[in-house]
């Protein structure tokens, strides 16, 4: 509990004294005639860990893609550190470390080859790439796998490579899309602690996920979106007070579900009656 109080204060201090590092204003996005993001406005301050949650299809991935500069056909304004992402996507991308969901990587390459490519794209010198990735992969317990092709890797191993590739250039903003998927319990602890430490060192973390218990623990501010709209925004403590619920899971259900969970589980049970 103590942790949340302190972060809440930090959040309030940030709000009044600092320039937002990510500023999203009146963001709208259409896929064809489908309106997927409806007037989203969020200011994110340096050192914050934002838990970005919402049901499937709420628009989480679309938001992430826009901040990463992958989609440019939106209306509204997205600024990262004062730079308009549409006007200068390359400079924005250089500040961001992105760990995509679904282990998307060129799996016929080895971690060494893949990370060299990633480093080169961030314009890092080869010696630095080798030095840093060796250290990071060693910390993940994967030093022995650096020269094996990734097509034989488990989902968790691929995820470790992806996390390394997203952090190796020491970015100011880190965007994580389900970064814990496939990781074993011990690695989950490592990554969760890593997230807190990165935040303490002043990095801004945008954490998009389904796993409520993790979001509840790692984030100091939670943004909940549903059907393309922000339906809640605040620290976990604030959300608890506003919604009068005890866990993020319950808050989530209350704000996003169209029917009550009890009713659904009852109907499932009733299916056996036939």
């Amino acid at each position, binding site marked *: 509990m103590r942790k949340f109080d302190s972060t809440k204060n930090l959040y309030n201090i940030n709000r009044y004294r600092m320039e937002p590092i990510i500023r999203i204003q009146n963001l709208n996005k259409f*896929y064809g005639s489908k309106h997927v993001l409806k007037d989203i406005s969020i200011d994110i301050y340096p050192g914050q860990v934002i838990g970005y949650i919402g049901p499937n299809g709420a628009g989480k991935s679309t938001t992430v893609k826009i901040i*990463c*500069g*992958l989609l440019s056909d939106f209306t509204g304004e997205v600024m990262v550190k004062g730079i308009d992402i549409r006007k200068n996507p*390359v*400079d924005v*991308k*250089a500040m*961001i470390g*992105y760990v*995509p969901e679904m282990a*998307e*990587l*060129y799996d*016929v*390459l080895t971690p060494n*080859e*893949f990370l*060299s*490519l*990633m480093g*080169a*794209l*961030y*314009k890092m010198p080869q010696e630095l790439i080798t030095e840093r990735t060796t250290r990071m992969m060693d910390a993940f317990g994967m030093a022995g796998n650096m020269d094996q*092709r990734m097509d034989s890797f488990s989902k968790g191993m691929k995820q470790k490579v992806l996390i390394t590739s997203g952090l190796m250039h020491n970015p100011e903003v880190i965007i994580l899309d389900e970064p814990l998927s496939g990781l074993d319990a011990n690695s989950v602890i490592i990554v969760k602690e890593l997230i807190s430490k990165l935040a303490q060192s002043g990095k801004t973390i945008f954490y998009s996920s389904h796993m409520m218990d993790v979001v509840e623990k790692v984030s100091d501010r939670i943004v909940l979106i549903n059907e393309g709209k922000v339906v809640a925004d605040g620290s976990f403590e604030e959300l608890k007070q506003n919604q009068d619920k005890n866990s993020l899971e319950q808050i989530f259900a209350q704000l996003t579900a169209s029917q009550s969970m009890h009713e659904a589980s009852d109907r499932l049970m009733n299916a056996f009656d036939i």
Partner: protein
Amino acid sequence: MNPVDKFFLWFFMLPASIYEKAGVDVLQLRAILTAKLTMDNRRQTAFKRPNRNQEKKEINKATLGMMFGSFFMGLILLFSFSFGVDLITKLTFFTTMFIFIMCITLITDFTSVLIDVRDNFIILPKPITDATFVASRLLHITIRTFLIIVPLTLPGFIGVVVMEGISVVLPFMLMVLMSSLFSIFLINAVYILILKITTPSKFQTIISYIQIGFTILIFAGYQILPRLRENSAIAHTSLKDLSYIQYYPPYWFADGCQALAKMDFSGSGLVSLILAILVPIVSIWVVIRFFAPSFNRKLSLITARTEEQSKAAVKTRKKTSFFRPEKLAALFTKTGSEYMGFLFSWRMMGRSRDFKMKVYPSFGMILVIGIMFIFKAPWSGSIASGSVNGMLIMMLAFVYLSSLLLTAALTNLPYSEKYKASWIFYSAPVESPGKVICGAVKSVMVSIYFPIALILLVVGLVLSGPGILPNMLLGVINVLLIGAVNAYLTVRKLPFSSILDGSANGGTFLKSMLLMILLGVVGVIHWVISGYIWAVISLLLLSLLLIWIIFNEIKALSWDKLS
């Protein structure tokens, strides 16, 4: 990277300072190209389908394999030099075939290698300018194209130098380059067309069918082209005599090349030369200016797959109105696990691209063998003269030949890329897996073989009258019998439950030899008794009885009999 890739990378990075002036980051460009070429080298190519032994081994020399494949096809191109009396006819045939092969190879390459949707997640979020990204794609395509062109034209190049001497070297190279550009234009046009008439999600499937067609054509090419040479009419034509030939693009390349080689610009030579250079350059400009933007837009749709998928799912459910597999399953199987096995296999066969890619090429090959058979076999004379006996032998030969199809389908029945999903059979209380297998085998017979048998029966009926039917029916039933024996001997796995690997090879070879002998014996017996209707009918009944017995044996297979 292999030395060939290294050479081409070095060669195309020579104008690095020019790239830099165009706003390209050379270090990033080199990193991307190095990674892409390394990946190409480890990928299965259009020419080399994964076979049992390759699956597990790490692929290291895919690029060299592809170059070898191109060289092999380059040898086919040599046949074009035996057509016609003059150089221009030979060259026109050569460019026609060259453009054709280029198009097909690049079409398969473009989807699997050059358009990698993972780029969207891996390269695009990095601080990379559009110029660098576009340059990396263009250079990758160029290097890839060169890796195909060089070995593909090498035999023809040697051939033309031997025929015409050194003077033809440069014009020939120019012609190859220009027709390659023209091919790239054609491919883009085909892509745009496919994307226009269909959804991006079906795109991959269509490309797969083109690939299957290609395999068959190459096979047919090797069978038919050498024989065409013997046809003196083709050997002695000259395309120059045809007035409309001037509208045929490959002719421009040939005519232009000849004009350059002989330094003779009289007649149509000069016009052809200008067209041969101008048209490819203009068409490539059209590609870059008009095709590329809409192409990229469409491509991004391929990534937005989820929405497409939900639409497709609705469609599949609605479609099954007339030919309900449920009805067929009820007709051919008993209820329970056999019925389930039939339906499951029916749907998997119809929908898995993996299975089709392995089985469909054999359809075409058998058709080619069949056609060769009609024209080359000793009895082709008696068929031409309309002899009833000749016709019967031919039709029976077709029927027994078609058994190879059934074999191809049955051999692939246990395999799937999604083999892990077969846990359902192991976790569910399935008492006798034999029933599932039996249902699956029946489903292969009904879905793959029945349509072919029906076509053969109708063709026989039309060509030869109802008198042929008892013999044809016996043939079809015998093929089913052999299929059942085959299934009993070789299908010892649940349908779609395993991944292809080398381990299963040993025993199955002996078994398939046995099957070929069985096929021969049954065929000969059939031929001997084919004149006696009572014998034909008794044998037919006997075969049906045997099929019934073998199906019961398959159904009785217990878990410990499975491999």
